[in-house]
């Protein structure tokens, strides 16, 4: 018996990618800086020093990502969701935020977390499985990462409404992926945000893949185009261009601060790694597609620009690499040094005040554990 062989999935290279057509781009893939008539003014103040700082961020975040992936492979982390390839989208947008803005993200936004002031040591405990949360959201202005797809888009909208009620000119930003746009919560968030003119930025990283499902399965039209139907202005940006991402996010935040309501940004980027360390993209992804996107690597692009300007010297590169290695080392040391969680911590924080049901089970389990005292 012979089986019909499925035709290989049509490979979509960046050149033919419809999502990138018309996307705002300030740094070309070759690293040339061009002006953008609409958004260029938002980054007119960004010179070599600022770009070098963004370069440092991107290299450090990629190093964190690689180190965490290694930690998972070595059995030190249960899981890790790599962001490889999405550094410009995350750094460019997060560096547009003020400290009093608030980010509600999915689980892949470790680059955003880094920019918000989450320490590398705080990034790994959740993925090691020793705690439910790595940081205090109010200290850094970023919620603990959301696992339920698109749920956080509503949280950002509600938080933004609270900012509006408080008379603050801060804004909320929701990070989510292309897959999340199919969830009802994403649509409901756009409806609520538009109705109340909530100061919220919907930042969609279209990384082309929701685990094994291509973005074409989520939408027959452009993701940014959908926002218009909700009455929310939108823009598509080259998500591998850190400068363009910074520009469009600043513009959206300025609109929010001025009372102009929500905006939607589609940052077209590419998930170069697996969905998580548990995933195997070779089962569903054409390697040629990956290669084509590798040529649009966001760090290479900025490096080319800075090298051509003569500011990214070998010495500077070495300093950035050393900084990244130092951060990675700090994260690894913190990770492997994490103590086993206390079993009694199971019963903490379920409620804000003592709860008789929890207290009863806690006391019973403590007695049970005590019965093994001799064995321990």
């Amino acid at each position, binding site marked *: 018996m012979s089986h019909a062989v499925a035709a290989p999935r049509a490979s979509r290279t960046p050149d033919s990618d419809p999502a990138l057509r018309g996307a705002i781009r300030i740094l070309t893939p070759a690293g040339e800086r061009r002006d953008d008539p609409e958004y260029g003014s938002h980054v007119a103040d960004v010179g070599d020093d600022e770009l070098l700082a963004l370069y440092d961020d991107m290299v450090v975040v990629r190093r964190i990502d690689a180190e965490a992936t290694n930690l998972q492979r070595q059995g030190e982390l249960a899981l890790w969701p790599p962001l490889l390839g999405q550094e410009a989208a995350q750094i460019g947008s997060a560096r547009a935020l003020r400290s009093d803005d*608030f980010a*509600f993200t999915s689980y892949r936004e470790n680059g955003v977390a880094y920019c918000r002031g989450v320490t590398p040591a705080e990034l790994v405990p959740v993925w090691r499985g020793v*705690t*439910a*949360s790595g940081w*205090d*959201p*109010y200290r850094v202005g970023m*919620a*603990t990462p959301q696992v*339920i797809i698109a*749920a956080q*888009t*509503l*949280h*950002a*909208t*509600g*938080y*933004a*409404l*609270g*900012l509006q*009620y*408080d008379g603050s000119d801060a804004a*909320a930003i929701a990070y989510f992926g292309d897959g999340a746009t199919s969830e*009802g*919560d994403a649509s*409901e*968030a756009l*409806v*609520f945000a538009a*109705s109340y003119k909530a100061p919220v930025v919907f930042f969609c990283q279209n990384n082309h893949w929701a685990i094994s499902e291509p973005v074409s399965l989520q939408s027959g039209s452009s993701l940014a185009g959908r926002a218009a139907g909700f009455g929310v202005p939108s823009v598509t940006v080259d998500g591998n261009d850190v400068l363009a991402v910074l520009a469009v996010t600043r513009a959206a935040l300025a609109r929010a601060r001025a009372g102009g309501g929500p905006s939607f940004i589609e940052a077209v980027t590419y998930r170069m790694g697996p969905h998580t360390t548990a995933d195997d993209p070779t089962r569903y992804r054409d390697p040629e597609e990956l290669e084509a996107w590798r040529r649009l690597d966001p760090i290479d692009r900025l490096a080319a620009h800075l090298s051509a300007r003569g500011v990214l010297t070998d010495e500077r590169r070495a300093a950035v690499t050393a900084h990244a290695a130092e951060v990675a080392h700090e994260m690894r040391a913190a990770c492997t040094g994490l103590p086993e969680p206390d079993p009694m911590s199971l019963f*903490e*924080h*379920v*409620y*804000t*005040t003592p*709860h*008789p*049901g929890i207290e009863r089970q806690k006391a019973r389990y403590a007695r049970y554990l005590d019965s093994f005292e001799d064995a321990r």
Partner: protein
Amino acid sequence: MSTMTMSGALNAGLRAALTADPKVVLMGEDIGALGGVYRITDGLQREFGPRRVMDTPLAESGILGTAVGLAYRGYRPVCEIQFDGFVYPAFDQIVSQVARMHARTNGAVRLPITIRIPVGGGIGSAEHHSDSPEAYFAHTPGLRVVSVADPQDAYDLLQDAIACDDPVLFFEPKRRYHLKGEVDTGRSRPAALGTARVVRKGSDATVVTFGGLVQVALAAADAAADEGVSLEVIDLRSLAPIDWVTVAASVRRTGRVVVTHEAPESAGLGAELAAGITERCFSYLEHAPVRVTGFDIPYPPSKLEKHHLPDLDRLLDGVDAALGRPSSYEDEA
């Protein structure tokens, strides 16, 4: 003291909460100009403005998810779900987000959200307007679940729920919205959240119930008294956590217990009550706990609901079973 209906007491409770704390905001469908489909928020938008009393788009997940964000920012949202059967689209936000956020953030983020839901049958409604979804939420760690049965508790417990830093599901039995009673608005009584109440003393058997069936249980106790049977009636008020101290003290005295609710029997709150009572009162029991509940069926068309809902006679049949008298519960395998 003044005489109020339960709906009037709820309205007064909301007004008191809005007045006491500027962070309290009401959210829901049709709660503004209309005052809610049951008029519980009548006049409140006029009094407190459209930001404190917000009409929302028709999206229950959106209401709860937005409430999470508002609470994250320090607000105290009180969400009205229009009917019991409309809460399911918000189920994920309630169970995955509202219930877990305090634990997920190691105590950093509190979500003091109150979710008001008109519940239960007995009013001849269309499908999805008569459900009793309490077990889903009582099963969910992180939530408190309250059910009120009279105007005074409606007034007090609603304010307690709103003031509580944990999320609270607040069930209002819609067939009792017009029940009248004396209400002390002085707030001089101790907070009742988390406690049950013995609404009628008795000695032969304990009836444990809540919400719309408390009145049915009281009527059954009157009828039983005519036959010389003394029933104690407990209004649970708090479905999660259950006030086991009050329940167990009663059952240890009477030795017999009937639990009754409108929701289906299987894995319902009655199962939890029967198990919990058996664990705590085993050596005091003269008979196994008896459940009188709605059947394990989708809520029936309104002409049939009188057969589905426990009424006075079915409750007394259950009491007969608990007393070891002839009943429909005999001969069950």
